C-alpha cells in the first residue's frame, strides 16, 4: 500500500510546484534565522496579540513575540526533526529489511513477526507511548517517530530485497565467492535506493505532520522554542481575538505537506518509470 504508485497522472505541476515548495522550505530552514526580523523569543508585551502590521508583518503572539520570526525558526525545527527522523528510520529499516530479505528463513520469520506486530500499532499511538517514556523533547520526538515509522521502511526494503536477491548479478556475486556482507553492501543496497528515496520523501511529509500533531498536543517540541505545531497549540485559546495566530502556522504546515506530497509524486514518476501507464 505504501509504495503503490496510485497511477497518478504525470503532471508537470507536481514537479514544478512541488519542487519549488521543497526548495523554498530548505532555503527557509537554512537561512530562516538570518531572514527573521526579530529574535523569536523576544518578549514585547506592548505588541501583545497585535494583528499584522508594518512592524510585525504576520502579527505578534500572546507574549508579543513576532509571529513571522517564530515561523521562520519553526521551519528549521520542523525540517531538522523530519530530516533526522527520516535518516534514523531509513538507516534502521535498511539494516533490518536487508537482513530479513536477504537471509530469509528463520531470521526473516522472526524479524517480520516483530515488525508486523509493531505495524499493528497506529504510527502516532506508538509515538505517543514513546513520548510518555522520553518526555517532550526534540531528541525524544526523533527517536519516538523514528522507531514508530521504521516497520514501514522494513516492509518496503524487504520486498525490494526479495526481488533483487533473485537477480543474476547477485547470483554472480555469490558464485564469485564474495562474502555475504560484500554482496549486500555492493549489490543489494544500491539497488534499494530508488524505492527508499521515494519512501523517504513520503515519510518526510508524515513526520512533519506527526511532529506538528505531537507538538500541538503538548508532547512535541517544548515551548518557548517555536515549532509550527506548538504555535497552533498556544494560539488556540486566542482564536477569537487573534485568529492569525492559528491561521499562519497551519498554512505553513499545509503548504509544506502539499509541496512534499507533490514532489514525492513527481519523484516516483521519475525514479520508477515502470509505474507509468
Amino acid at each position, binding site marked *: 500500500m505504501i509504495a503503490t504508485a496510485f497511477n497518478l497522472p504525470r503532471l508537470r505541476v507536481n514537479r514544478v510546484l512541488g519542487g519549488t515548495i521543497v526548495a523554498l522550505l530548505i532555503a527557509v530552514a537554512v537561512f530562516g534565522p538570518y531572514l527573521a526580523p526579530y529574535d523569536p523569543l523576544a518578549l514585547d508585551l506592548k505588541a501583545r496579540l497585535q494583528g499584522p502590521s508594518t512592524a510585525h508583518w504576520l502579527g505578534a503572539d500572546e507574549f508579543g513575540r513576532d509571529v513571522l520570526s517564530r515561523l521562520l525558526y519553526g521551519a528549521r525545527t520542523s525540517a531538522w526533526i523530519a530530516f533526522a527522523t527520516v535518516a534514523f528510520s531509513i538507516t534502521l529499516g535498511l539494516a533490518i529489511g536487508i537482513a530479513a530479505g536477504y537471509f530469509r528463513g528463520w531470521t526473516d520469520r522472526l524479524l517480520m*513477526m516483530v515488525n508486523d506486530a509493531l505495524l499493528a500499532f497506529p504510527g502516532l499511538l506508538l509515538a505517543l507511548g514513546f513520548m510518555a517514556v522520553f518526555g517532550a523533547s526534540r531528541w525524544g520526538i526523533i527517536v519516538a517517530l523514528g522507531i514508530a515509522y521504521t516497520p514501514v521502511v522494513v516492509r518496503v526494503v524487504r520486498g525490494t530485497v526479495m526481488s533483487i536477491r533473485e537477480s543474476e548479478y547477485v547470483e554472480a556475486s555469490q558464485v564469485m565467492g564474495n562474502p555475504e556482507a560484500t554482496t549486500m553492501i555492493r549489490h543489494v543496497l544500491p539497488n534499494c535506493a530508488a524505492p527508499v528515496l521515494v519512501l523517504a520523501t513520503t515519510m518526510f511529509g508524515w513526520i512533519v505532520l506527526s511532529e506538528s500533531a505531537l507538538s500541538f498536543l503538548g508532547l512535541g517540541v517544548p515551548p518557548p522554542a517555536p515549532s509550527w505545531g506548538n504555535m497552533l497549540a498556544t494560539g488556540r485559546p486566542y482564536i477569537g481575538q487573534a485568529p492569525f495566530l492559528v491561521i499562519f502556522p497551519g498554512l505553513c504546515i499545509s503548504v509544506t505537506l502539499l509541496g512534499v506530497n507533490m514532489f514525492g509524486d513527481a519523484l516516483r514518476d521519475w525514479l520508477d518509470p515502470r509505474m507509468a501507464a
Partner: protein
Amino acid sequence: MGRFILARLATAIPTLLIVAITVFVLMRMVPGDPASLMLGDLAEPEQVAAMKHRMGLDEPIVVQFGVWLGNVLTGDFGHSITTGQAVLPLIIDKFRISATIVLIAVFFAVLIAVPAGMVAAWRQDRWPDYTVIAASTLFLSIPSFWLGLMFLLIFGLKLGWLPIVGYVPFSENFGDALLAILMPVGTLILHESGPLTRMARASTIEVARLDYITHARAKGLSEPAVIWRHAFKNAFAPTWTMIGLILGSLLANIAVIETVFTIPGLGRLLVDGIYARDYPVVQGCMLYIAFVYVAVNLLVDLVYPLLDPRVTA
C-alpha cells in the same frame, strides 16, 4: 473458507502477544517506578518498599508480565493513579464517544471517496480526474487539526452557526449532540476522503485494464454499467483494506481533533494520562487501541473473501 478464517485468527495471536509485551516494556521504561509515583514525593522509603511488594514489583520481570497479562485477559486493566477509577470501564466509556465520531466520519468519507475515485478513473487524464486528484492531494496535505481549527473559526466564531465547545452525549439530547459533533465529523470526512479517493481511483484504473472489462465493453454495455456492475466489485477490495487501516489508526489520531473541539474521547484520555504520568491509563489506552486496530483489520480481512474470492485459494 473455514481454514482461511482459522489461519487468519491464528496469526493475530502472536501479534497481540508482541503488542502486549511492547506496551508492558514501554511502561516499565517510564522514568520513576510506579510505586513512588502512586505515593507521591513525600513517601518514606519503607512505604515505597511495602507498596512495591503489594504491587508485585519486587518479583522477577517475567513473573510481573505474566501476572499483568493474566489480569488484562480477565479484563482487569488496573486503576487510574489520579482518580482511582477502574481503567477498563473508563476506556470503554471514552471509546464509545470516539468510535461514534470515527464511524460516522469514515462512513461518509467512503460514501464520497468511492464514487469520486471511480469517476476520476472513468475520466482518467481529463478534467474530472484532475479535479478529484487536486482535491484529494489538498485534503491529504491539510492537517486535520488545523482544518478543524479553521472550521471552528469560520462556522463557530465568525458565522456563529455551530457550538464551539462542549460535547453532548447522544443519550442526553439528540439534536444538540448532533450539532456538537458536526464539525469534528466534517473535519474527519474531508481529511480521510483524500487517501480513500486515491485508493478507489487507483484500483478502478487497475481493474479497468483487465480483459473482462474489455469484454463487457465489447458486448455493448454502457460505460456506467461496465464501471458499476463489473469494475466496482473488484475495485472495491483494496479500498476496503484501507478503510480498516483508517478506522483503526483514527482512534489514536483523533486525539488532535478531540483537543481542538474539547471532546472527552479516548485520544484525550490517553494524552491526559501521559501529562499526568498516569501509567495504568496510558498502558490501558495503548493496549486497547492497538487491540481494536488488530481486531478491525482482522474483521476486514475476514470479510475480504466475500469481495474477492481469490484470496482464500
